[in-house]
């Protein structure tokens, strides 16, 4: 019955117009108060968190940390973000924050360059821009909150595996893709650290699971077949470590071959509790968000400008100092084990 028409039909669109107008009016009314100025004592402590994408447990945790901090110092917290993490999808949200005239914007960049101009326009409009988790080019933001240095990440993984295998024997690395920038940098540093400080540990092979669960699972199986003397695996990627743990937990190697690397508590909880994995590392995203919020506040209030050597106080985390390239280091990576994994949900 609904064949296509070639006549002019205004009425239906008119009805739609009313519906859309009403929806817009309602949403406008509902959120009308939550916008720009915080008023009062002059400093605009409205801070917007812009993660890579929404619905990501990692950013839910980090932003919850940010919200906690903002509540402590009496600012206004809001969170916006795209539904998918594509390079340019954050631009409209940065523009919106600039239009709303927020005091600060805390961003995890999907692309170091694509959002650069939008961030600089927001800064011209008076918004303080802090990046966390993933940085942009240094000239596009006021401050970067670095979760961990590459040296720190490499060192903690080598230390963990050395401790778990008694500082001697064969180990292998299960990485992400062969051209993953972060992983390759870490692996290179791990190799240097192993050669310099752990002469009895032999790194037999680095395999690549492409950050795909099944591929990582198969590569783990192949490693254990190829090297019967293997004593430990390092997987510096969250997908890889979970897949390797899944393989180990159901195999004869459970408890005999050590596994560590970078993982998230929710993925690894089961394997820590059943004894497959003793400990693994990552940073604490809640602390990262918390620190980012305090750093933004310090920028808004003019306490720091992003100069190297500036110091500010970040609530329960204590005092921090701005380092080179206007970056602040959260601290050493956080080690998760059976004792503390119950405290985390991300």
């Amino acid at each position, binding site marked *: *019955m*609904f*064949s*296509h*028409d*070639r*006549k*002019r*039909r*205004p*009425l*239906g*669109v*008119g*009805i*739609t*117009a009313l*519906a*859309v*107008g009403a*929806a*817009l*009016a309602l*949403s*406008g*009314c*509902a*959120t*009308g108060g*939550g*916008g*720009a100025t915080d008023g009062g004592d002059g400093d605009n402590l409205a801070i917007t968190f812009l993660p890579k994408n*929404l619905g990501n447990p990692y950013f839910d945790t980090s932003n919850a940390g940010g919200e906690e901090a903002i509540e402590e110092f009496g600012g206004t917290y*809001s969170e*916006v*973000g*795209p*539904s998918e993490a*594509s*390079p*340019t999808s954050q*631009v*409209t*949200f940065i*523009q*919106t924050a*600039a*239009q*709303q*005239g927020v005091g600060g914007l805390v961003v995890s960049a999907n*692309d*170091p*360059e*694509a959002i*650069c*101009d939008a961030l600089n326009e927001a800064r011209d*409009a008076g918004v303080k821009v802090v990046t966390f988790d993933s940085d942009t080019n240094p000239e596009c933001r006021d401050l970067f909150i670095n979760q961990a240095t590459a040296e720190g990440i490499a060192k903690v993984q080598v230390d963990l595996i050395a401790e778990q295998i008694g500082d001697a024997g064969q180990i292998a690395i299960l990485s992400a893709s062969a*051209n993953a920038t972060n992983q390759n940098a870490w692996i290179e540093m791990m190799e240097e650290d192993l050669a310099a400080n752990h002469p009895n540990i032999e790194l037999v092979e680095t395999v690549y699971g492409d950050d795909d669960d099944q591929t990582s699972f198969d590569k783990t199986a192949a490693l254990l077949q190829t090297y019967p003397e293997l004593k430990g695996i390092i997987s510096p990627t969250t997908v890889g470590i979970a897949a390797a743990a899944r393989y180990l937990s159901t195999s004869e190697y459970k408890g005999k071959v050590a596994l560590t690397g970078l993982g998230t508590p929710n993925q690894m909880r089961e394997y820590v509790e059943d004894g497959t994995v003793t400990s693994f590392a990552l940073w604490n995203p809640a602390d990262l968000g918390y620190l980012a919020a305090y750093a933004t506040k310090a920028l808004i209030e003019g306490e720091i400008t992003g100069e190297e050597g500036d110091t500010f106080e970040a609530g329960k985390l204590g005092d921090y100092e701005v380092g080179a390239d206007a970056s602040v280091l959260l601290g050493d990576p956080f080690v998760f084990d059976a004792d503390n994994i119950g405290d985390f949900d991300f």
Partner: protein
Amino acid sequence: MTATASETRTPRTYRTHSQPAWRRMLLTREMAVIALLVIVIAVALAVVPNFDSPLTVTYLLRDVAPILLIALPMTLIIITEEIDLSVASIVGLTSVLTGILTEAGWPFPAAAGTAILVGAVAGTINGFLITVVGLPSLAVTIGTLALFRGIAVGLLGTTAITEFPEFWTDLAKDNIPGTPIPGIMIPFVVLAIAFAVLLHFTPFGRSLYAIGLNKEAAAFSGIDVGRTKFLLFLMSGTVSGFAGVYFTLLYSNARGDNAIGMELSVIAAVLLGGVSIFGGRGALHGVIAGVLLIGTLGSALRLAGVTSDIINVITGVLLVLSVVSASLLAWIRRRRISAIGKRKGRSATSADSP
């Protein structure tokens, strides 16, 4: 014979148009979309904080500019009952080429010109397969959507080229001096006028409607259907190439996955603007209003703190409603006309007919 015919011509007993001029001018799908746009702007100005800042206009127009540009040739293509799904992939491909050639040391105008030329070649490939080989445009452009995107990603991998001459990136972002309107609107307005004249005031444009309504009838009345469609796909590729260069400069970023999925935004806006997906109906002012409507609604809702998922839902519902309402009202109208016909028929038989 002709002389006698004109002498005995009786005065016409029916009206030239079934509806008075004001109804034909104002009660159209296009005017309804424009009215909806005005309502959304008015409501947003009234209730959404910060919507009235000049930044809103700048950002809005800058971000919808690629969609506005590509919607122009897309309108013409859909009016002929064809479709071009490869436009966003052409944007990606030309963006990557602009980046690679600039990085290789070409002067930027030469790199951009070459990229636009490659866009035209991509359109030619579409046009050739559709008109000469005679394949359906849906199938061809789904294929070239994957093909052009594949070449783009293959050329640059997962890396991005981000260094472009500042003069050109500034040119892409700067406003027309003294106004909040971005400079990209100048080429857009020129193109829009050109396309409007082409579509609405030339025999070529009229032939597009004829093709869309009935290909065979159009062919028998002397329209070269193949050549016409070929030219449309060539235009689409060229304009997409230009949009690709603009996109690259706007975000200072040449990547293989630039503008991924944009073809759907373009087609959604064109359909919302009153162009029939079955061809033969539509006008450019409606399409431009359709693009601006989706853009403004998104901008206002984002400013009001609505999340992107909800914005997608609202835009989707709007699109479905606009399509369904057109069909539903056409059906009601046919029912009403046939009911009037029946009533007239009864009264004619029962009462004395004049």
